[in-house]
């Protein structure tokens, strides 16, 4: 599990260097480039590789920050929360039950509007034990005021971590942001990444400035007093307003990122072969890899199938998904998570999407699939089966008000 001391296949190019690195190493580079001041670590697979890379960068003298190995995830998150209050840019992360151990700290971080950036190495929750990816860990904070974004590749991980700092620390927002990386499939899988140079990053990412919210003897404020029913509702309303504003700020950040780094991408979702699609598949994270291959195969056979990858789960891209999916006949949502006892016993993404598409005229049928739990592979054959079932639902041949588990022993 030890990270390689130096990345292989290193090559200097204009505006940065090209390196063959994993998602975890890509995020470690983002931390270095963002000149993060305080980082806290606690071991749990698979996210902890990012901290192995960070600690090596520090010991090699490539990166200067306070690096604290906490005694629990709860302390890990609390320490950076307080460092953030005195004006330090911070980074933290966890996986699976470790993320849950920090749950109280995550609630207050959002409540306090601390612009922390965290990496989630998505992992199945215990019990039974599993190292592989499931999205229920990160999704658990979805209603607390955390912004949540899923990425597909190491390049996107690096880019999105920089964007996350820019958005989180924007004074119009001041909300924490979690960058979700699928365990193993992204945390430990390498790809060629353009690691940008410092000057470009500096032109994109301003210094973290708390302004009059800074906890300092020159600004002797009281943070987080007991507000009770007198004021809590107004304070919650402010968080709601910040999350609403995040849509615009995220869009701005992606536009500026595209200008500065030359990598343009649609902020909230990725549309893959969606022109003229009659059937759409929807999912998040590295699931995109087999889905894109399967979509290409099916397109080669003349089937009008497309794919929408949801990047930002919070704020949820309601308008973008309405736009992308209002003309298709049926949608298959592939959740790498579960929502036991929820409507239609569906995955979390499926039910969010149902709500988002409810007002759409000629609403497409929405079928929920659960696949790839605990890190089980979702292969192209699975995806082709799913697309076939979605086509059946489109023609009314299959019940769309249920949830189908794919690749499971019955």
């Amino acid at each position, binding site marked *: 599990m030890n990270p390689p001391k130096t990345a292989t296949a290193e090559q200097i190019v204009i505006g940065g260097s090209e390196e063959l690195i994993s998602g975890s190493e890509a995020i470690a580079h983002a931390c270095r480039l963002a000149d993060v001041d305080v980082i806290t670590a606690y071991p749990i697979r698979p996210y902890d590789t990012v901290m192995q890379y960070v600690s090596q960068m520090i010991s090699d003298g490539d990166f200067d920050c306070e690096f604290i190995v906490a005694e629990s995830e709860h302390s890990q998150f609390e320490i950076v929360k307080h460092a953030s209050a005195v004006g330090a840019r911070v980074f933290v992360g966890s996986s699976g039950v470790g993320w849950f151990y920090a749950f109280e700290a995550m609630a207050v971080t959002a409540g306090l509007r601390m612009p922390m950036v965290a990496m989630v190495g998505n992992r199945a929750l215990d019990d039974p034990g599993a190292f592989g990816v499931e999205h229920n860990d990160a999704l658990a904070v979805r209603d607390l005021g955390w912004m949540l974004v899923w990425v597909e590749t190491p390049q996107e991980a690096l880019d999105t971590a920089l964007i996350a700092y820019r958005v989180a620390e924007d004074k119009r927002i001041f909300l924490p942001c979690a960058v979700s990386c699928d365990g193993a499939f992204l945390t430990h899988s390498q790809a060629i990444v353009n690691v940008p140079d410092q000057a470009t990053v500096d032109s994109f990412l301003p210094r973290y400035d708390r302004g009059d919210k800074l906890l300092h003897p020159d600004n002797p404020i009281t943070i987080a*007093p007991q507000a009770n029913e007198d004021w809590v509702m107004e304070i919650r309303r402010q968080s709601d307003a910040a999350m609403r504003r995040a849509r615009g700020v995220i869009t701005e950040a992606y536009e500026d990122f595209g200008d500065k780094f030359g990598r343009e991408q649609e902020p909230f979702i990725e549309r893959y072969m969606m022109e003229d699609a009659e059937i759409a598949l929807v999912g998040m994270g590295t699931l995109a890899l087999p889905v894109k291959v399967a979509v290409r195969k099916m397109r080669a056979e003349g089937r009008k199938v497309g794919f929408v990858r949801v990047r930002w789960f919070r704020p949820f891209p309601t308008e973008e998904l309405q736009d992308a999916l209002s003309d298709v006949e049926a949608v298959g949502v592939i959740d790498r998570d579960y929502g036991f006892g929820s409507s239609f016993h569906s995955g979390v993404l499926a039910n969010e999407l149902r709500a988002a598409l409810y007002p759409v005229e000629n609403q497409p049928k929405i079928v929920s699939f659960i696949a790839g739990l605990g890190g089980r592979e979702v292969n192209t054959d699975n995806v082709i089966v799913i697309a076939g079932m979605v086509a059946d639902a489109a023609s009314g041949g299959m019940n769309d008000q249920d949830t189908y588990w794919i690749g499971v022993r019955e």
Partner: protein
Amino acid sequence: MSDVITETLDDYIKTQVLEAWKGPKTVPEQEYFTSGHRTCQGCESALVMKLMAKAAGPRTIILGSTGCMYVANTTYLSTPWSVPWMHTQLGSSGSAATGTAAGLRALMRKGKMEKERINVIAFCGDGGGADMGLSAISAALQHTEYNLLILMYDNESYANTDIQVSGSSPYGANSTFSPPGKERRIMHRRWKKNTAPMLAAGHPECKYVATVCMSYAVEAMNAVRKALSIGGPTFIHSLDPCPKGWDYDPMFSHELGELAVETGIWPLYEIEEGKIKMYGKSKRIVNGQMKRKPVQDYLLRQGRFAHFIDEDIEYFQAKTDEMWEKWLIPGVLPFSAEA
């Protein structure tokens, strides 16, 4: 290798001497914990807050863990704190102090904030410190590169939530989770945790651990000043009589603090760079210059022990005698050397 990264303790952070105050008349009048709080009449923990802030002075950041001194002290729009103050979670005093000190250190070292010694104090109650927050405090006390003080104000119960027993409640105390009933007289059978020596013994690089009681206020303030001068992480444990939780008339708070010391139930000492120094009446007890008062003088003044019968008092007395007569370091450290 960069020097910036290899440095351990920066001079500007390390050095600070807050001189001890010689007596009440030399203590400045300026307060940093002022009006606006809603603590009970006779609340000794509020006095701890006031004198702790006074001892530390204006260049201080205070982190307050959930408990009485959060809930009763910091109502929105009527904060009593005139130094910067921030809430932290019940078990997070250690993490709050660590994070604040680390943030300041990083920013000053990297030239993002003016270099200055800023005191970092996190306080917690006994529930937040001796119970839930113990692991985070333990971790904080290992970080010799950060200057911080964790002060545990011990009113011997979860007093803010209606008086429930904690690991720091005395044996047999009546609380809403340990009420004497028809079948069982003693519901709380655990002996009070020996928190300060546990932390001192377990963290040999922590330079300063002390016990205080606000009945001896100048000594307590000087403990805070020493803790903030000595460098690295430090810990102070304060015993705070609580009229509501201990069930006595608020006018007797000061007197009960004195009785806790005079009976030997609450020893006063400093553990400074590995050396134990008893002070005040505890020093006189250990030197044989003063006889301990019987524990019943203390116990029977409080409603929380009103259900005690003779055998309970005898048990309490015997356990207290053990502290002074059998322990390796009387009043501080248990174990006895094998004969």
